[in-house]
């Protein structure tokens, strides 16, 4: 029984990591209708900035806030400079641009900071919390909490603020929005900025676990896509829940289904997604896209 609970707890911890990056993916998709393949590398790059600030002597939370601000401006700038020229191009062009961005950010980070992995501090206590024979990492719990706070803020933002509502309108119906006086171009840029900000939070919560190096988001991005697909690309809450589900399922199947073991864990996660896509293409919590023709 202990092993079962411990595997679930550890699955929730990893799932929280997937969910936090999935949240950033969903965020940008909702705000701009783009699936951003460079999301992981943007988060990684922001984390390096945070690392630089912390090493310069800033207290953790000051560096945290400063990184969020820089990430927001950086995301905004990327949209203005890189994405805007191809805004109306076919989907494939945008995908290629995003992948290009991924490679560039990865190489620049390696060039500037080297590929040696670095420890990244956690704001939470190091000592694990022990209940019976089950250990909860304090950082894992804290990170999950932070992800939920981000999720809640996004919900409030998109639901109750003028800017949030304007952004949703701009993504869903650009023409009508423009007629209402919403500056659609800028709304898209703000969407990228916010996604970069959410990604930066994810990066700073992930780095203490997987350590900071330019490739730290590589594997995680695949799982984040899986989580977002499972939960639904249009549902922030679904993305986080999707992450948790993927994390727990992969651990339990790896532990208890002998012929799958640890070798086919990733395959299981992907199989789950395939099934979801066949049965419910918009994800567990996503809305089916309806277009008037």
């Amino acid at each position, binding site marked *: 029984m202990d092993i079962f609970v411990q595997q679930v707890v550890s699955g929730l911890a990893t799932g929280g990591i997937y969910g936090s990056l999935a949240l950033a993916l969903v965020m940008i998709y909702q705000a701009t209708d783009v699936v951003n393949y460079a999301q992981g590398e943007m988060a990684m790059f922001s984390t390096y900035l945070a690392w630089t600030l912390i090493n310069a002597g800033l207290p953790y939370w000051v560096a945290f806030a400063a990184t969020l601000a820089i990430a927001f401006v950086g995301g905004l700038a990327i949209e203005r400079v890189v994405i805007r020229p191809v805004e109306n191009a076919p989907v494939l062009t945008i995908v290629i641009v995003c992948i290009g961005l991924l490679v560039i950010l990865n190489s620049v980070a390696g060039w500037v900071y080297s590929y040696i992995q670095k*420890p990244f501090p956690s704001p939470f206590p190091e000592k694990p919390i022990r209940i019976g024979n089950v250990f909860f990492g304090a950082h894992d719990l804290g990170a999950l909490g932070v992800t939920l706070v981000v999720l809640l803020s996004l919900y409030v933002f998109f639901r109750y603020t003028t800017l949030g509502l304007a952004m949703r309108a701009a993504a869903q119906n650009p023409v009508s929005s423009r007629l209402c006086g919403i500056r659609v171009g800028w709304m898209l840029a703000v969407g990228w900025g916010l996604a970069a900000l959410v990604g930066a939070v994810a990066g700073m919560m992930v780095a203490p676990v997987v350590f900071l190096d330019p490739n730290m988001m590589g594997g995680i991005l695949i799982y984040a896509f899986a989580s977002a697909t499972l939960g639904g690309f249009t549902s922030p809450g679904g993305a986080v829940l999707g992450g948790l589900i993927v994390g727990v399922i992969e651990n339990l199947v790896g532990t208890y289904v002998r012929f799958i073991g640890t070798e086919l864990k990733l395959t299981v996660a992907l199989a789950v997604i395939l099934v979801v896509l066949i049965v419910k293409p918009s994800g567990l919590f996503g809305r089916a896209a309806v277009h008037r023709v």
Partner: protein
Amino acid sequence: MTRRNIIALALSLGVGLALVARLAVAADMPGVTATEVKIGHTNPYSGNASAYGTIGKAIAAYFKKMNDEGGINGRKINFVTYDDGYSPPKTVEMVRRLIEQDEVAFLFNTLGTPTNSAIHKYMNQMKVPQLFVATGATKWGDPQNFPWTMGWQPTYQAEGHIYAQYVLKNVPNAKIGILYQNDDYGKDYVKGLKDGLGDAAKKLIVMEQTYETSDPTIDSQIVNLKNSGANVFYNVTIPKYAAQAIKKTAEIGWKPLHLLNNVSNSVGAVLKPAGLQNSKDIVSTFYLKDPTDPTWQNDAGYKDWLAFMKKYYPEGDLSDLGNVYGYTVAQGLVQVLKQCGNDLSRENVMKQAASIKGLSLPMLLPGVKVNTGPTDFYPIEQEQLAKFDGERWVLFGEIYDASKK
């Protein structure tokens, strides 16, 4: 015959002779001229394994030093190194370019198990030396079937043997849990341990877990290993996962005898990120002098290395064992070139590489020597165990010689 004609004739004769001479050299010794020997190399300067890129840079820096000092037997080394990003198809492309276009004399210290595997057959078909490859897989020492390929560092299997002996001698009632990377590298290490344990292997090994390099974390595997009741943890992982494993075992309160593979025993890249306190009492193996170990502070070999780093590779990290590795393997090659004398044909390079006797190099641990022979394509086969005391690795016990077992 006018004077102009004579000059023209003389010129064309001269050019013709020069061409013949050049062709003759090219036929015998590709990549070699009277003043230069051209050597090819691939290394991951970008991508997933780019932490190893520093090895290529250290080698290039060492050859620069040799050239500044007049070269070897009057010839300077022209070191051509390409980035393969640790991607086997890219390695094939780069190596074909090195051999067919750049016409290098031979390849030296190409890095990686999957990458070297991709060019293994090609090199032996082309009969071009693939010398001192930077991987510890066992398959590089097979002169019978692959006479043009030779390893360098102790093999993963040999290292596995050492841990097996250590466990058999020191841990009564051992229950071994293994975590390994699901590829040739991981399996080599596991085979070494099992061979070393012999018949006891089945009884002693209580659980084996694997991971893929695409896995974000290995937490789940560590939880399973702890639950298996193992009191020995054989950790066969690359630096990123090694650091995670050390941290996680401490976090879930598992305190086994932790055997950490040599691949990941860097203090700077693994133990520091994982937490030095969490790393206390881990056991690993060494064959090079760790530049962070104060034992070598006044050692002549260490001082020379330090001076070399400061002059020729000032941007290199002084705590990175990769820079010691590159320096040492380059010295190994220089020895081969010296032995070759004026005959730098590919046959002779292989012949000389296979006749190194008792060579000590300044940054190898005292007692560790390079030895090769016509049937022994494993240059370094000696290692020593070390235990981490919370600050640094402390060597203990004797030098273990894998060639004698």
